[in-house]
């Protein structure tokens, strides 16, 4: 962090923010992507679209659009460079990129920024899924355990909720206090309540499971 420059994040974030690479500047129709992935929503404050072109299972070109803060823009830009350098990354590897991989490219990010602004890996996976879907093929690289997202704003999955329930969050209010689930756009609240009730029913019925014991 260099305070003298009046900049709050790392130099890498600044460079990507000021000179973002691989933005989609033409329409999607003109670009003709082989796969498109979208994550987030305007209500969440972050939304990303990733467009990929694939040949021989390599992503030889990737373009993107991002609505979000400086680190959201910088992280998508950094991801686009990671994916497209040296003739393009193989889909198998691209599918496995994690937020940590992207953060490494950016030097570092404040922890509160990671969940909300590093969505590029998820958008890329969505684009890869779309690529296979368009070809009517099964994605051979999909992780079988990937858990569906309940709260888009904070990227909270069913698995995350299950873990909170097992750690003693037995009602929606406690879950919300711990995870902020549904505190932004609120769209997911009914679904989140349904999911937590399912796990509470599963683990706490007849008080068989006691997290304190």
């Amino acid at each position, binding site marked *: 962090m260099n305070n003298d420059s009046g900049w709050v994040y790392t130099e890498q974030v600044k460079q990507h923010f000021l000179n973002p690479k691989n*933005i989609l500047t033409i329409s999607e129709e003109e670009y003709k992507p082989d796969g498109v992935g979208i994550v987030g929503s305007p209500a969440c404050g972050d939304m990303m679209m990733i467009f990929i072109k694939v040949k021989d299972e390599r992503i030889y070109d990737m373009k993107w*659009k991002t609505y979000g803060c*400086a680190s959201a823009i910088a992280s998508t830009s950094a991801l686009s460079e990671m994916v497209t350098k040296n003739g393009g990354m193989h889909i198998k590897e691209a599918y496995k990129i994690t937020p940590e991989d992207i953060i490494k490219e950016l030097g570092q990010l404040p922890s509160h920024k990671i969940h*909300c602004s590093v969505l590029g890996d998820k958008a890329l996976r969505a684009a890869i899924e779309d690529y296979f879907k368009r070809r009517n093929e099964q994605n051979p690289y999909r992780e079988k355990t990937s858990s569906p997202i309940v709260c888009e704003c904070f990227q909270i999955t069913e698995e995350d909720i299950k873990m909170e329930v097992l750690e003693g969050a037995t009602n929606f209010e406690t879950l919300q206090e711990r995870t*902020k689930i549904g*505190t932004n*756009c609120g769209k997911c609240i009914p679904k989140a309540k349904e999911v937590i009730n399912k796990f509470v029913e599963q683990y706490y019925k007849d008080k068989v499971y006691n997290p304190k014991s």
Partner: protein
Amino acid sequence: MNVYLDNNATTPIHPKAKSAIIEFLDFFGNPSSMHSDGRIVKEKLVIAKQQIADFLNASLDDIIFTSCGSESNNTILKSMLFWPKEKQNLVTTNIEHPANLETAKFLEKNGIKVSYIEVNDDGIIDLNQLEKSLTKDTGLVSIMYANNEIGTIQPIDKIAKIVKEKAPNAIFHTDAVQAAGKIKLDLKNSPFDTASISGHKLYAPKGIGILYIRDFDKKRKSFTPLIHGGHQEKGFRAGTENTIGIIALGAACEALQSEIDVEIERIKKIRDYFENKVIENIKDIIINGKNSERVPGTSNITFKYVEGESILLKLDLNGFSVSTGSACSTGSLEPSHVLMALHKKPEIAHGSIRFSFGRENRIEQVDKLIEILVKEIDILRKISPLSK
């Protein structure tokens, strides 16, 4: 140095306050001491207090020095904890500053009943809801004078009339932190009982605040000090005085006294010029609170399809300091509660920027600002998947 357009966050120290501080630095005595080192400081504090009382048109007896606006708000609100059960009913709004809102939530956890009045999409409280929320058992009504984020001024006179009618026993408190220094206050002739004011919002340094209690000597028994100890502030707020802060606030008030009429007009002209230029040059914007009476320097604008922190950082890199209601900037991941209260849509809060002009700003600075805004908003919108 940036062009500073964040005068609602804090203000630069007034040059006259600055020289008053420097001159005063050698007077280190404790104003409570009986010897001449103490007495001379005491005398200087009396003069400063008079300057402050003159500027606010308040009786000297009714001014209590605190450390900040938050302390002043806390003192009034937390006094409720010591009131009889039947009077432990607070009526406030959902656009208050956290110094009020979080304190209200704390009171709620401690058994006090709180009603939160909502605002319309122009940022003015719902007077019908206020009327319905007030009862003869309402102990305290706490409604901010001007809002820090959008600058809207509440209809204080109308509110006071409703309070008097529906809750004649209630104390009416106002958080006037964003009003003092920005518009003219006339505390003696205002219809509220107590008010909070912060020094650093009116060109004095941080660390000095005022709690105004009308007819202090009669009313003081309604309130409980937060800090017990020495006899300072008539035993209502212990702790050795922030002598430098008081001297500086006195000097700032004296200076503002002669400037304020001209400054209100001048700053309003800059703000209006800025807003007209934004309307002329940038499409898809919302000026939040525009249809209400506002303090002259505040302009809160939502730029659709882009996110506030990005705009803030772009402006910062181009030499302008502003603030945003976006969730990203706060660390809390929650967008501005004020803009959420107005519009109910997080995306409007996420894309909002607050420009707050003050006495050091010049109309010439606006043209450069507009030029940069047009350019940077365009760049960010080209990156955004939401742009049309």
